[in-house]
């Protein structure tokens, strides 16, 4: 009930394993935004899946792409492609997990006693959780019932290999989209988006772009 600090994005100065982090990494612009409408994000070498290893309605023969391709941290700042515009984003590390996100100016870090989140506000954010700490580690989709009522699959997100499903509380209310991040030798992570379903059009593209650029930070 206390111990909530909203940290400005500039507050994060401790970066591990990065000697030359001051120079913005402009040499590596992001690929165009994947808003989903086009269903084919232009990421380098799309990874095709023929096996039905993801849960959800079986769609045989449909190729899926990886949302997250490169977890290597390269510098404190990059630019993100948001709505076709390149916007600067600053790296923030997530408390208690060896990961971090590049977040644009309209997002901030929310620090809690037991971890942190990055978001547009307290109701619309990206969170991380170790899979083994979930209520149902064996049923990830069920684990997304963070109070949300209905489990479903979002067609737009089905293109991503990491997508494990969504939950929502009515058409206007809060929804959660889940993604499974596997990173060899480290605990499997659930990345989840929590936002209002009515705001999907504006929020989802931002969260996808931010998540696409998640980085691993050696603990």
């Amino acid at each position, binding site marked *: 009930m206390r111990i*909530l600090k909203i940290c400005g994005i500039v507050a994060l100065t401790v970066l591990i394993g990065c000697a030359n982090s001051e120079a913005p990494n402009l040499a590596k612009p992001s690929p165009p935004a994947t808003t989903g409408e086009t269903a084919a994000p232009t990421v380098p070498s799309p990874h095709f899946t023929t096996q039905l290893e993801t849960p959800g309605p079986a769609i045989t023969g449909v190729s899926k792409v990886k949302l997250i391709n490169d977890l290597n941290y390269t510098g404190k700042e990059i630019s993100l492609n948001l709505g076709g515009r390149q916007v600067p984003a600053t790296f923030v590390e997530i408390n*208690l997990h060896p990961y971090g996100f590049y977040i644009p100016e309209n997002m901030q870090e929310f620090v809690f006693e037991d971890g942190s989140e990055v978001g547009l506000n*307290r109701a619309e954010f990206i969170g991380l*959780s170790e899979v083994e700490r979930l209520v149902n580690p064996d049923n990830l989709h069920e684990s997304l019932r963070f109070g949300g009522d209905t489990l479903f699959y979002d067609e737009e997100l089905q293109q991503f290999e990491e997508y494990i499903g969504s939950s929502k509380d009515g058409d206007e209310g809060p929804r959660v989209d889940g993604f499974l991040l596997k990173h060899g030798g480290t605990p499997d992570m659930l990345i989840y988006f929590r936002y209002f379903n009515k705001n999907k059009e504006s929020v989802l593209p931002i969260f996808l772009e931010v998540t696409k650029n998640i980085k691993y930070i050696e603990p």
Partner: protein
Amino acid sequence: MAAGHNNVAAVGTSASNAKYGTSYLASYSQGTSHAQVAVLKANLRQYRSITPSYLWTSTTSLEGNTSNSFDAATKANLIVFQNNTGLTADGIYGAGSRNAMHASIGVSPKGWVRIFKSTPGYVNYNDTAEGLSADATYKLDHSWCTSACRDTLYSLGYSFYSYYNKLIQVNDACLLDGADTPEHSTHQTGTEVDIRNAGLTTAQATKFLEICIANANVKRVIYYTTHGLTSNKILVQSDHGDHFHVDTFS
């Protein structure tokens, strides 16, 4: 739209309403008209049906009274409820009454239980006047966890009490429906509870850590120091200066 309440009449603030997309009031009293008042009346009818009838003699029945308006009968029934549950009997339904209603008839869709108001092993800080006022921003009830977790709390507290004649203060666990809470990053699985360290000496805090480490259902304790103990169950985090965050296995 449960948002931490499920079957029990919900209270909220602008901050919690923004979080869940709800429009709950911080309190309801005679004259209020709100959909949650109809829920409150249903709660009071249910509570009345499971408590001795002599408590309710001369109290107008709420049978068939299903409107959204908080009338004199609602107030009279609420006052009986408040007297019965050790609350100030002011006839106003706020976070304290909501907590007591949760404890009386609340149903967790997750199958969790509510941490007791007080036991020989601990007190629930959320149900104290101080705890309620500290929760003013969101007015949510973070008192829910799995029954194994609640048993573990009792066992930790009872063991601690046997050394120091002092009850531990249990603070936030989870919301009854496991909803994402604006006050914690985790606290959604029914196996995460905060224990306050207010008033504990170093020796007492060390003993509490020892008791946690020795408990088979304690998975991890996050605290600002190990107090010299060696255990991979203790995770040191500098911002945990005022409480122990305890994770249980089940």
